[in-house]
């Protein structure tokens, strides 16, 4: 196989066309749906598709399983919310700060943690996330445990505030998920993409082939952190409130990783497919079964994830014949 980095192969061309078609379909999707609740569901699904794509770059392609991505999400959400509510900087600008801080945070976490591997790395990211959660709960500047409310003032694209219309958020989240996907598409075929897959398969072998392991991990972390942080900023604007538990909690780290894991780790389509299955199921089960308060919705949701993990350990995308680009081919030939 002599694929050069950045070469547009047939397969990558097909992916690009598939992505464009999906983008158009998703852009049209809410138009026939008048129901605000269902539209809201799609908004959340798109958000998690983007977030999980961000996680996928580090956790999927590069194989560094992070259980602390809520950290970057929270940093992004807080950065944009604080810039907006205290300094009047509109969120579209604040998001750049979010992306920069998210990338920086990922580099800071990566610096010590990438010296660990496997489970040790996963545990270290989890601990980092918990540390920042505790810090945020006690740090007055970010309103400690009280959280930050983003008050609705007026309908405005500059402030990303919309009264009832879910539609603007649909297009915002769609743009976000699309950009996250496009970034994944680009890096997947880049030299970094090749390095990441090599690192994921076998660090020693990668090093022997002159792959610069540590820098390539750091690059994956920075891109991943930046994407996740921008998602956090969009979330804060959509929900209108951010506090340590909802922005930095451990369960959020899992929620960010889950769509990619269920959909297919290290695949271009995995996060989207995973989010499209998990988020509607989760939200609809709350709506239909949650009112009784007996937890049936959570059991149902948990059972579904277990069933998917058992039936399709390679992820849902394997149903469509797509194979993980992250080492799948190598493993097949071995």
């Amino acid at each position: 196989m002599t694929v050069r980095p950045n070469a547009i192969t047939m397969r990558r061309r097909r992916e690009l066309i598939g992505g464009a078609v999906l983008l158009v379909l998703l852009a049209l999707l809410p138009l026939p749906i008048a129901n605000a609740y269902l539209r809201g569901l799609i908004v959340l699904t798109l958000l998690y598709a983007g977030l999980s794509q961000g996680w996928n770059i580090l956790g999927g392609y590069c194989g560094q399983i992070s259980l602390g991505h809520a950290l970057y999400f929270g940093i992004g959400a807080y950065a944009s919310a604080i810039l907006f509510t205290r300094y009047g900087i509109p969120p579209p600008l604040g998001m750049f700060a979010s992306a920069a801080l998210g990338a920086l945070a990922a580099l800071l976490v990566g610096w010590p943690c990438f010296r660990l591997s496997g489970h040790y790395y996963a545990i270290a990211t989890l601990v980092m996330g918990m540390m920042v959660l505790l810090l945020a709960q006690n740090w007055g500047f970010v309103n400690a445990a009280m959280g930050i409310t983003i008050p609705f003032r007026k309908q405005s694209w500059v402030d990303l505030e919309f009264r009832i219309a879910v539609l603007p958020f649909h297009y915002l989240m769609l743009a976000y998920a699309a950009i996250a996907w496009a970034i994944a598409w680009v890096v997947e075929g880049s030299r970094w993409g090749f390095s990441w897959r090599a690192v994921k398969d076998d660090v020693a072998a990668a090093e022997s082939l002159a792959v610069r392991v540590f820098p390539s991990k750091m690059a994956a972390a920075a891109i991943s952190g930046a994407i996740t942080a921008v998602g956090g900023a969009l979330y804060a604007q959509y929900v209108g409130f951010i506090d340590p538990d909802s922005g930095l909690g451990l369960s959020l780290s899992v929620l960010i990783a889950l769509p990619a894991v269920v959909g297919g780790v290290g695949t271009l389509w995995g996060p989207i497919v995973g989010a499209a299955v998990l988020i509607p199921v989760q939200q609809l089960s709350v709506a239909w079964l949650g009112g009784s308060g007996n937890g049936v919705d959570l059991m149902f949701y948990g059972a579904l994830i277990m069933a998917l993990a058992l039936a399709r350990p390679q992820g849902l995308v394997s149903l469509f014949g797509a194979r993980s680009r992250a080492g799948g081919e190598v493993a097949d030939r071995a």
Partner: protein
Amino acid sequence: MVDIGRRSLLGGATAGVAAGTLAARARAAAAPDIVIGAVYPLTGNAAPIGHDAQIALALEADIINGHYDVPMLLGQGGGLPALGGAKIKLVFADSQNSPQIARTEAERLITEEHVVAIIGSYTSATAVTISQICNRYEIPYISAENSAPSLSQQGLSWFFRPSPTDFDFSKSMFDFFAAIGKKTGRPVRSVAIIHENSVFGTGSAEIQAALAKKAGIKVLADISYQASTPSLAVEAERLKAANADVVMPSSYTSDAILLVRAMHDAGYAPKAILAQDAGFIDPAFFKAVGPLGEGVMSRSSFAIDAVEARPAIPKVNAMFQARDAGKNLNDLTAREVTALQVLADAINRAGTTRNTALQAALRATNIPGNQTIMPWVGIKFDATGQNTEGNPVIQQYQNGVWHTIFPFDVATAPAVWKVGT
């Protein structure tokens, strides 16, 4: 109604008239139900609270709809008189204690279930997102027991809170200190604040520290801890070293138990404990600490012993006990009952469920305290939707029972006051 309209278009004039008469007849037979949403944490760590809230709200709906003849506003039953005896129908949604899910579920209740108002939500974080969504859709949000003062300062015009806020609660503690000091000649000169570090404890401690400063009372310690901590031994030692006149904890249940036991183990018996409700009023707390709970004081917005001034309490409490495994009404469930009562009264006075009429009726709310089960002066909303007549009480656990000890005019027992002795 939409259905009828479509049919009359399709089927011509005759069918239209027939459908119209049918609808009118149906309306005369039974007024349509009034659908009210309730968003609570029904699963997760706060699920027991949500479970109780469900029972409390369903109980009040039952009192309004049925025929129980409870001596309070709308206690005569038979539905809402001004709406032809319309019945209250509750639709519950689970927030899982997540602000995002609370937001989504509130939106679903409004757009799918067509609720006329939403009641909620126990935690302040979920109240922020629910109240914002309600404001955008222009339907009232009745905050039953969210106590963060900031909620009524969001500039929302559809937010109404009959309950006192954390500021009112802490202020009543310092009012109590001043009053009891004057009465006994043994004033409070110092306090030690200890609080869990989430919204509840942090907010409470901040207000207490500010009020102490204002009252010229020294804060000898201000300790924060994580509610899930396995031990509070170090914190107990610090409290012992501070040895303030009053220990002021803001704790949930398990940490309240740990704290009281740890102080005991450290050989420290504070002269007075004045708690911010929550864990310290949980029956599980007294079960766990036994005699160490004796003499503990707490603020409350509900006084179950105020039966003389609030004649509805025994009946409502008995009904609640029958539905919730023998539990008494507490500070939370009593406020939930009252929140629905306040909303139903406004709907009844509005005579319609139209949102603007309902908002106007809520703003004009004026319910005297004795028409409720709360020890408050009454219920009257200011421009921010905050009740201005919801004064809290201070209670003390004496011989295994809560007694109201302040304000003195509604007190059912004198305070056991050891400060300065």
